[in-house]
């Protein structure tokens, strides 16, 4: 239960981090560090599992670079961050403050 909430949150953090990059891509090592700044301190393998899940949902595409994965945001992933569609299993972004 706790684990599910954390994963859903981590997935949103990943999508948002990609959205903030000028090229909308980021590698798993920097994503791992980004998650750490949100208090989610996990091994790279854990991050890879979440990235593969997001790929299977069509939210990102992945490129293998040796022992690192590079994630690129897709249109579907971007739409979730912008609250235009919902991907089940990813936390919904908060409404922008008025």
């Amino acid at each position, binding site marked *: 239960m706790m684990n599910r*909430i954390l994963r859903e949150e981590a997935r949103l953090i990943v999508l948002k981090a990609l959205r903030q990059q000028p090229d909308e*891509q980021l*590698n798993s*090592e920097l994503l791992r560090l980004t998650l750490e700044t949100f208090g989610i301190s996990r091994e790279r393998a854990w991050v890879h599992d979440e990235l593969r899940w997001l790929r299977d949902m069509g939210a990102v595409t992945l490129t293998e670079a040796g022992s*690192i994965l*590079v994630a690129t945001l897709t249109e579907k992933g971007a739409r979730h961050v912008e609250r235009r569609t919902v991907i089940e299993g990813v936390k919904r972004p908060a409404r922008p403050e008025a």
Partner: protein
Amino acid sequence: MAPRGRGRLSAIDLLPDDCSAIIAWAADQLAARDRTQLDIYAAFREKLIAVQGETGVGFDIPSFSAFNRFSVRLAQMTRRLEQTRDIAATISERFDAAASDDLTLIAAEAIKTLIFEILQSAGDGGLSTRGAQELANALRAAVAAQSVSTARRQAVEAAFAEKVEDVVETIGKEAGLSAERVAQLRRDFLGVRT
């Protein structure tokens, strides 16, 4: 050899998995900046005690000073990631945008990670180029792959070398790295050519 990885685990890293959501909650509260750190710590402590009661799992509640170090570390890392994004954005336009294939993509990520790790090393003393080096190696492997044309290979190698020079020179100086370290980074990322 500089220490690799994250080094000694903090009291917060040592908390059991049942506490993950509480740690994430605390990080969120710290980042929001509407409550004092002492206030957040008090609530954090209470939540952890509640978990101990519910699950019967025994663990040490981190002290306020451990919590403070955690908070400082998060804030610094957030700032470095933001700086990395900004610096990468300013140099990325010189990458060959038209040919956005895997090589360009990996090269861009190697550069970003290198920037972050140089910034991080200035703050934390030791230089850990774990991620950046892995990416540089992956790039070398990808470049060496048979399927890539010679011209494309050379173009990516040249662009990558130029970026690494820029990053190591500029940020290395700003971050106060020694000439020796700068030379080491060059060798790590560009091979023995330089």
